[in-house]
């Protein structure tokens, strides 16, 4: 069953900002990045671990440090409660050609544990919702 990725993205900041452990491990992370889902663009802006409301839709001249681009079906697989082989991690998706990681990977790697956890949250939310 697929999830509404836009709704999921809009619900993400509240979850990130209410998660004390995520706030602890991400407290030095400030970065803007793009999550591309097919034709849909989601701009995520993190300021010291807090995620601002996610902007949806293409925005000309909007800057980002790095971009994660995948097809909607790939993100759907990534957010399955138990993802299939090749979809359980952004690096797994990259290795198997399901995800392109572009731009400056520096901030992604520097805050890797935090950002991986943020990206995986829709999986947790979906599992908790019993979807």
């Amino acid at each position, binding site marked *: 069953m697929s999830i509404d990725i836009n709704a999921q993205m809009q619900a993400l900041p509240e979850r990130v900002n209410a998660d004390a452990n995520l706030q602890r491990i991400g407290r030095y992370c400030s970065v803007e990045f793009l999550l591309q889902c097919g034709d849909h663009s989601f701009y995520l802006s993190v300021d010291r671990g807090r995620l601002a409301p996610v902007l949806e839709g293409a925005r000309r001249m909007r800057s980002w440090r790095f971009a994660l681009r995948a097809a909607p079906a790939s993100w759907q697989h990534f957010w399955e409660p138990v993802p299939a082989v090749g979809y359980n991690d952004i690096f797994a998706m990259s290795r198997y050609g399901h995800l392109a990681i572009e731009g400056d990977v520096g901030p992604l*790697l*520097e805050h890797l544990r935090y950002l991986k956890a943020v990206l995986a949250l829709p999986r947790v939310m979906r599992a908790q919702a019993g979807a």
Partner: protein
Amino acid sequence: MSAAIEPIVGRYLHLDVLGEMHRIYFEEAGAGIPLLCLHTAGAHSSQYRHLMCDAGVTDRFRVLAFDLPWHGKSNPPPGWQDMEYRLTSAFYVAAIRAFIDALGLARPVVMGCSMGGRVVVRLAMECGASLRAVIGLEGSDHPSPWYDDSWLERPEFLRGDFCAALVSGLVAPQSPDEPRWETLWHYYQSAAEVFRGDMHFYRTDSEYRGGQAHTHGCPVYLMTGEYDYSCTPQLTRESAARIPGAEAIIMQGLGHFPMSENPARFRDYLLPVLERIA
């Protein structure tokens, strides 16, 4: 109050490897056929602690694992502060053979994971006649670097939590939280420079294809978790096809650290292999 002492015993060994003395930490449990276990890059021998506490293994096997120099409780060599650590194929093989000789292990089984799963292939080719079998966990016969790692030596990434996050996706989603995070803790513990130094072996200096792939009758088992995207099941099958007498076993619901990320599931795959070896 309750307390339990595990059967694992740890000791230190002063070992000559390629003319240089190293203070090596090793652990062991059980009795019988020596089963020497090799840890992954940037980790240490604790990865095998569950195996050493498994009576289904230790009743017939003497399970041993040592920390490579620079890892775990083994020291780096004197003067380490003035050198860059880079694991080479030659040193790795020499260290394993020196350990086997020093402890007088007769026809041991050597089982390694990841870089350890790679080096056992060369061991079989170099001295297979003196080994009962080798088991390469998450092992293949050649490097397959798939991402640029030029950033790995930048100081902002020389952190344990970065190494842990880098490998975290290699643990299968089915693996329970506690062993998953213990597996990642080993990467938190390691000196990040050591992880990077091991990558020299894993990404560059371990090409074992070509030439005479002769294992001298030594059985070679290559066991890989389906979720391993570092040593993929495909790489494992291709490697096994090139090595005489090798067998590939793909393990469902496991990743790159089967012995530590999900010991209960791993033993279901390992015990039948040990049964055949014994």
